[in-house]
């Protein structure tokens, strides 16, 4: 990390402790848990959303590394960031790169203010890892496009404002990766149905979003017709290398250290050290990828390595904690874990998703192997 970021880091830490003291949020370093429009709006006011975007769209013209400092501090503190997270991380950058002037002017300042939230519209019931096999169709009509099909695992579709949906716009073109396009979907006003899907912790985060003759205006096409695959791929480097890919169980790690106390046995010492050395290394790798993004490179393979190792680490934290600090599994109660055993119960239920979301371990390994020239 270059010098000069320490002041920003201190500012973020001070803001977080004040915010926590003012109105305590449930600490949980998994970015996908805390959803708080109030908190997101405050972050927007601090200038910590859309940090790297140009000023003419309401952004703050700061570097990728400055953004990195803010995001990692938010996650390490377990702040409730999920409301604006997707918009800030990938939807905004996507609009900046490929969106029309009209869409940029309309949406980016809203995102920056922390009051406009996005969902990802990629997976479908029959298209998970094999994203290029999606079947949701967009066909041209008089004023724009008519959509038919459905998206699934759509986090927060029921409370977000927009979704960027990847659709098939041309069936006849050769090649699976051709004929795909991205569209802006207005989750509040378009003619569509949002069906809740309750996850195994009993939470409503996922949804199914169903399009049935859903008509949208032509200006909702993002980028060029047929460029959807290329655009989605560029989104993924942002999605995969950030600190949310190795900090999701940091809260458990910190609690483990508390629980062990001042007189660790040899195995507990080694476990804490092993988690520390791995976390320290993962962060170095992730920061390096942020530096590459800053330099305008597209480090797809590096991002896949970070995500793969980071997700393994997030799961390992929980299994290591279990092996050196045994707890009886307690019933999971959604209202804030208090004891270490409550936290472990929640973490145990949450970790299976870490190596699935944002691309599975198996897909990451395939991307790495391709990068090594093996495929």
């Amino acid at each position, binding site marked *: 990390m270059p010098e000069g970021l*320490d002041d920003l880091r201190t500012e973020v830490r001070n803001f977080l402790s004040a915010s926590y003291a003012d109105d305590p949020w449930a600490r949980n370093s998994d970015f996908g848990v805390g959803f708080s429009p109030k908190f997101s709006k405050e972050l927007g006011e601090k200038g910590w959303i859309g940090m790297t975007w140009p000023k003419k769209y309401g952004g703050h013209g700061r570097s990728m590394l400055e953004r990195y400092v803010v995001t990692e501090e938010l996650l390490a503190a377990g702040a409730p960031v999920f409301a604006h997270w997707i918009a800030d991380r990938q939807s905004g950058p996507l609009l900046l790169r490929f969106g029309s002037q009209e869409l940029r002017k309309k949406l980016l300042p809203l995102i920056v203010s922390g009051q406009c939230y996005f969902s990802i519209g990629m997976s479908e019931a029959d298209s998970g890892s094999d994203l290029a096999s999606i079947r949701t169709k967009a066909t041209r009509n008089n004023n724009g496009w008519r959509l038919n099909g459905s998206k699934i695992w759509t986090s927060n579709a029921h409370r977000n404002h927009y979704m960027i949906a990847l659709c098939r716009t041309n069936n006849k073109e050769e090649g699976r990766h051709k004929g795909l396009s991205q569209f802006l979907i207005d989750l509040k006003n378009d003619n569509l149905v949002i069906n809740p899907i309750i996850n195994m912790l009993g939470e409503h985060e996922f949804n199914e979003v169903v399009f049935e003759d859903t008509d949208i205006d032509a200006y909702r096409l993002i980028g060029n017709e047929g460029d959807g695959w290329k655009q989605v791929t560029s989104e993924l480097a942002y999605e995969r290398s950030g600190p949310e890919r190795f900090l999701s169980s940091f809260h458990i790690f910190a609690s483990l250290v508390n629980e062990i106390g001042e007189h660790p046995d040899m195995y507990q010492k080694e476990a804490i050290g092993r988690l520390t050395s791995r976390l320290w*290394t993962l962060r170095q790798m992730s920061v390096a990828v942020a530096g590459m993004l800053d330099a305008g490179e597209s480090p797809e393979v590096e991002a896949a390595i970070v995500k793969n*190792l980071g997700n393994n680490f997030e799961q390992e934290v929980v299994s290591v904690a279990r092996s050196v600090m045994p707890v009886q599994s307690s019933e999971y109660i959604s209202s804030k874990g208090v004891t270490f055993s409550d936290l472990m119960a929640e973490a145990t239920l949450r970790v299976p998703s870490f190596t699935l979301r944002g691309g599975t371990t198996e897909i990451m390994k*395939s991307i790495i192997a391709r990068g*090594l020239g*093996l495929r």
Partner: protein
Amino acid sequence: MSEQLNLITASVERLFSNSEVFDLQMQLDSGKLPEALWNEVESSGFSQAEMWKTAVHILRIAARFPISIPLAETILAANLLRGAGLVIPSGVLSFVAKDCKKDIVISSCGKVSGEVQLVPWARQAEFILVIVQDKLAVVEKKNCNVKLRSNIAGEPRDDVNFNNVNAVEIIDGISASCVLEQAALLRSAQIVGTLDTVLKITIQYVSERQQFGRPISKFQSIQHHMAELAGHAASASAALVAAARNPSFISIASSKAISSEAATRSAAIAHQAFGAIGFTAEHSLHRYSKALWAWRDEYGDESYWNRKLGSYFVKKGSGMIWPNIVGAVK
């Protein structure tokens, strides 16, 4: 700086690739130093390279070749001498660092006594630097008794009896635990250089080796092994580069723990990928895997450094983990 590192890379590569690798290995196998190569390394100034960045870089590049020479040891000793304001003699240098007085003692009148096991390259060294707690004594090797031994990679690791020898120089205010950290980082650099080559030759092998009518790299299980190998190489490299840029207890401990663990897993994956040919004396893979197995344990294996880190953070408390990870402790 990066331009300078590129120049160093090119010249280290030129030096090592010009040498007759096979002859050198035969000499090494009989415990001899490849004199001609060593002389070139000395005259290029590499054996006195400055810690950290330059030294770490040179050792990484050198370790990409299957030839071992006492470069890390000489560099470390040369830096200690330079730091103490002493003249750096030519020839091989070695060192011994102990943070307690159990095995070896430097007396107040400047005599060194005791026996130390596994001193790297002692038989070739002109001088051995003995660091006990906070004292450094420079000893002429010719006055010591040396019993020849070696590590699993065949590198000289001799037992040295110091025989109450008079030190040539005594310097105060040097920390043995700092020297051990420096040694750990230099071994990390050698591990990372070796991993660079192991990854390269394993990719090459699985792309060429045909079974069931196609290169084995086309099989998903092989691809996943290779992705794991690449992950280990990338982790060890990232940790090393960061630690060399900003050396501290945490960065060095992490780097050695990560590279030692990476050494273990990577050697296992590479041997699995190469199959029987990799298990032969004739194939060069064992030059690299043996080096990994030796270096992962020298100057602290992963358990050693992880336990040190663990003890440190248990004392500091959970609130200090994150500030230390990001290196911004208020």
